[in-house]
Each structure stands twice: as structure tokens, then as C-alpha cells.
């Protein structure tokens, strides 16, 4: 029985895979250091993330798996749910142990679980791309906060970088305490010293003078494209569950100017 602990990074997790193969000691459990409980029976192995070892595992995987499958593995890591380490480990081991490709073998539990986790993460990523609402500040920064169910900020940066190449923007994950800032040339990951409070983040007076006008115009637009005769609250909620309303300016109280 072997308990592996790691630092919580993707690199650390790949290092665990390396160490397990090195020792031929298959993990009974893999947990983050800070969550580790003393283990009564068997050995605890503390793994220090190692770039070279992680790279070797990743290179080995690249020979066995398509880009899509590698991406799904990384998405499973960003999923942040209990037991993701074991799922990823089982998947990698199955990939190394099988001579043909394991992708599409949904009869194997770990393959199915990775596919399902990746799907959930991908859906949340897509929702963030849709539901982020920027507010323009007086110094022409477009600012938004998010608090997604999974850690998808790293996945949406590319999308916004390509889309808003000619404006400065920042997206801050209030749940995880980090953000992305685009300065017209590249994106930087930033930790703000005073993490903004949860939802309404920008103090009054910081916003551009025309911000309220466009917010209001958007609300007017939203109200007028609706066909009241065909009201369908069930369908409406299926598309935008209430937990996403906090992002949406059209779901905030109507503004009177």
C-alpha cells in the first residue's frame, strides 16, 4: 500500500507517475500534501515536483495519445474534484500498458471518467467565454470577474487574447485569487494585492462615463428581443442556471437614468 503526496500542481502529479513507475509501487491513493492524513498501513511517499521527470512522462504520453486526449487529461486536472489524481493515474497507466490506442475505449472506467470530467470542464470554459461581461473603466481597461465551478481561467485566456487584440482587458477569478491581464502585447497572470470583493468589484467613479449608458442599452435590448407570448422559464433556466446570473448585466436590476 502506497500513499503519494504531491504539491497540487499538474507537474507534481506527472512526477508522481514517474516515481510510481520508477519504484514499480502503484499508488493506493494520491493526495495533495496539505490534505494528507497519516497512513496507518503502508508507506507514504512525498513527491517533489520535478520538471525533468514530469517532461519525460508527458513526452511518453505524446507518443501514445492524440492532442485531444492530452488536453482532456489536463482538463481533468483543472476539474479540481476529489479523486482526480487516481483517475489521471489510471488513465496514464492504461495508456502505457496498452499497445494500441486507448482513446474511445469507453468500456474502461478511467477513459470514461476522463472523458466526462473533460466535458464538464469544457462546458464551464464555454460558459465563461459566453457569460463574461466586461466593464470599461475610465482609463479604457475592460474588466471582469469570474468564479467558475472549475479552474477554467487558464483555458479561456487564448480565446479573449485573440478576440480583444486591440483593447486592454483583465479577468479576475475571485474564487481562486488570480487573474489574467492583457496589455495589448501579451497576457500576464497576476495576483492582486487587495483581492476585490466578491461581485461588484469596481468602486464607483472608476468606470468610464459611457459605461452605464451601454449597460442600460444592453438591458433595453435584452428586454425587447423577448417574445412574452412564448415565455418558457424552464428552458430559460436550463440555458442560464441562476448561479451564472451574477455575471450578467442583463440580469441585474434595471437602471433608470
Amino acid at each position: 500500500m502506497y500513499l503519494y503526496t504531491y504539491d497540487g500542481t499538474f507537474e507534481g502529479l506527472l512526477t508522481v507517475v514517474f516515481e510510481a513507475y520508477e519504484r514499480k509501487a502503484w499508488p493506493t491513493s494520491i493526495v495533495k500534501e496539505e490534505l494528507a492524513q497519516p497512513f496507518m498501513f503502508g508507506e507514504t511517499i512525498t513527491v517533489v515536483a520535478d520538471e525533468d521527470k514530469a517532461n519525460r512522462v508527458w513526452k511518453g504520453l505524446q507518443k501514445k495519445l492524440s492532442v485531444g486526449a492530452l488536453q482532456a487529461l489536463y482538463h481533468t486536472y483543472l476539474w479540481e474534484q476529489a479523486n482526480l489524481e487516481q483517475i489521471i493515474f489510471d488513465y496514464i497507466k492504461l495508456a502505457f500498458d496498452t499497445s494500441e490506442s486507448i482513446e474511445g475505449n469507453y468500456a474502461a472506467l478511467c477513459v470514461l471518467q476522463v472523458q466526462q470530467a473533460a466535458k464538464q470542464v469544457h462546458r464551464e470554459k464555454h460558459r465563461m467565454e459566453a457569460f463574461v461581461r466586461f466593464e470599461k473603466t475610465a482609463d479604457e481597461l475592460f474588466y471582469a470577474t469570474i468564479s467558475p465551478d472549475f479552474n477554467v481561467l487558464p483555458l479561456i485566456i487564448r480565446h479573449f487574447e485573440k478576440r480583444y487584440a486591440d483593447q486592454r482587458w483583465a479577468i479576475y477569478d475571485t474564487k481562486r485569487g488570480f487573474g489574467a491581464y492583457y496589455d495589448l502585447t501579451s497576457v500576464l497572470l497576476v495576483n492582486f494585492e487587495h483581492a476585490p470583493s466578491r461581485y461588484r468589484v469596481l468602486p464607483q467613479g472608476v468606470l468610464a462615463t459611457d459605461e452605464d449608458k451601454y449597460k442600460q442599452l444592453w438591458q433595453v435590448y435584452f428586454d425587447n428581443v423577448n417574445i412574452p407570448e412564448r415565455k418558457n422559464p424552464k428552458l430559460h433556466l436550463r440555458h442560464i442556471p441562476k448561479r451564472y446570473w451574477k455575471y450578467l448585466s442583463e440580469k441585474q436590476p434595471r437602471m433608470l437614468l
Partner: protein
Amino acid sequence: MDDRIIEKLSILADAAKYDVSCSSSGGKRKNENKGLGNAEGMGICHSYTEDGRCVSLLKILLTNHCIYDCAYCITRRSNDVKRAGFTVQEVVDLTINFYRRNYIEGLFLSSGIFKNSDYTMERLVRVAKKLRLEHKFNGYIHLKTIPGASEELIKEAGLYADRLSVNIELPSDNSLQQLAPEKSYAQILQPMKDIKNQLVQATEEKKLFKSAPVFAPAGQSTQLIVGASAENDNQILQLSSSLYKDYNLKRVYYSGYVPVSTDSRLSILTETPVIRENRIYQADWLMRFYGFDAKELLDEQHPNLDLDIDPKLSWALRNPHSFPIELNTADYEMILRVPGIGVKSAKKIVSARRFAQLNFDHLKQMGVVLKRAKYFITCQTRSLNRRDYDMQEIRNRILFGDGSVRSALLTQQLDLFKQVS
């Protein structure tokens, strides 16, 4: 000045909302000029209205002044509504500012016809041109093509727009002439044909020269109103089937008629049931993604889609000789025809069975929905049914008991009533 814009926006968004197209994908327009916007990926729905429709584009009319008098249309000349019109600059400002805040994927611009077709079309093109050339805007643009507009203007529109559409409005020329005397199929099909020819030409040129100008890369679509005239579902599906084949349309949209008018030319003044529109869309999907031909779904004996059950189930019940099928060996095309199994599930099944003989537990884990499918499939020759059912029994079991899949849009009372009678 703000108040005036707010009023215009409310009038012209309200007037445009019956146009149902919301697609924002297929533009493939990359942000290569360090400009604003990128439409290379899939479409994004940024919000949803309370009636459950997606909001991905700023969908507005340039103006609701109109010289035509189409009975089904809220902006018809004889209707007493508030009129308004945007300037080109106002539309451009709204689009850019909404886009920068991530409210929308782009613009869907249509218009009432003022003065004449070319005059109107020319203004629509001007908006698109300004967005592309002056603002380096790479978001999605869908322009409505005004019936009767000249070929040159359509050609120019295609240079700046991602999608063009001409609304066919009603399912037959006869109805159109009755309800929209100034319009005719000939006048609508001509620009549709022009767009198709331009699309074909552009693809040919693209093969020869990589730098050839693009023409409406997301193709063309159309829309017709269901329930404002007397055509049955069979006529509607035949029409869309021929539009897909003969005009290479990307989409035909169906809009269940909402009574916006008490015009005496309209014989039917009740609202079209949402469920009918829904069934027609399902049938449309079956034609485009599931390999069904319109003739398989409906014919003279069955001129209308069954409102109680979906068209695929309805087809399966009429074709008992095709079932059950063995999932471990059946062709992909046949798996697609099993009620309750969609494209994704069918693909997963075909992929997974290369590794293992599938059983029902595998299917459940993969998320294949068996409520309807179980009557039509076997896994390793096993069935989930204790005995054979005939098709009438299957229909009743699916509708009324044993894991009912009755559509939420149907009321329970209706079913009970039918059971009794």
C-alpha cells in the same frame, strides 16, 4: 440624445425579434489585423431570453418604415406602430460597444424597405463595410438580403458579411401572393440563386488563388413562417428539402406564427402551438444530420408530424421490420435511426465496441438514454424487454407509462383524454 437611442433600440429590436436566426458560427474570420473580434471558432450564445431563445447577435432592423404590406408582418405599412430608423453610425457604435463588453458575437441587420430595394440594401451594406474597413471588426455579420436588390449589391454585401439570408416567408407561392401581394417566389428565389452562384464561384476561385476574396463564408439561410397559412408539414418539409438540395442553404429556420396582426387576409388567427414548430425542427435535423429523406418522414398518407411523439420514433414505429438491431454489429447509419440515440451516443457506441462487446451496463455508463431505445435494440442478442411488444404497445408504454418521456409541452389532461376515447 440617450433617450432617443433607447427608444429607437427598443422599437427596432422589438421589430426584429421574429427573425429567428441566431447562428454565429462558420464565419472562420480570424483576427489577423490586430483588430477587434475573432469569429474563427464555434458560435457562442451570450445570453438567453425568457422565452428560451439564444442571444448571440445584436439583432435589429435599420428601420421599420416599410413600403410593403405583408399581412403576417408587424411592420407592414398599414399597421399603426411607432416608426424609427437608425443612422449608419448609430448601428456601428452599438455593435462595437456591445462587442467590446462581450455581450454579443456580432450583428444581424435587417430592415423594412424604404424607397426601394436597392436604396435599402445599399444602406445595409454600408454598415457592414464601415465595420470591416474603418473599425477592423472581425466579429460575425449577418445581413438580410432585400428581395429585389440588384446582383451587384448582393455581391458587395457578401464581401463584408459572413452570412446572407433571403426570407422565403411562407411555405408556398400561393400563400405568399395572398398575404404579401408585393412579394413573389420568383423575386425571392432570384437573389437566393445569385448568392448560391457567388458562393460556388468563390469556392472555385479559392481553389486557384489562396488570396481570392471570400464571399459570405458562413453561407446563406432562410426563414419561413409556420401556421400563418394552411400548408401541412409534408409540404413544408418538401420545400426545405429542395431548398437544402437546390440552393445549398446552411439552414432553414421555422418561425411558429405569433399573432401580431388582425389583418383580415389571415384566416387563422390562433397561435401556432410551439410543439408543432419543435417537431418540424426535429424533422429538419433528421434530414440534415441523421440521413433521413423528407419522403421517409412524411407522405400523402401522413401529411403532418405526430405532435405526441418525435418524428424519429414515429418513423421507427411505422417501420417495425427494421428493428430490433444489434448494437455490436449494426451500421453507424442504422444506430443513428434508433429513437433516443443521438449523434454523440452513436459515435461513442461505434468507438467503444472496437474494444469490447458492449452490454447494457456499458451503454448506461456512457450516458446512452435507453427509455425509448430499449424497444429497438439488442446487446449481444440480449434485450431489456421481458417480451416482444407490438408497435402500438411500444407507443403507449413510451407515452403513458414505464418511464414516460411525454413532452413537457403536452398537457397531461390531453393524454388522459386520449386514453379514454
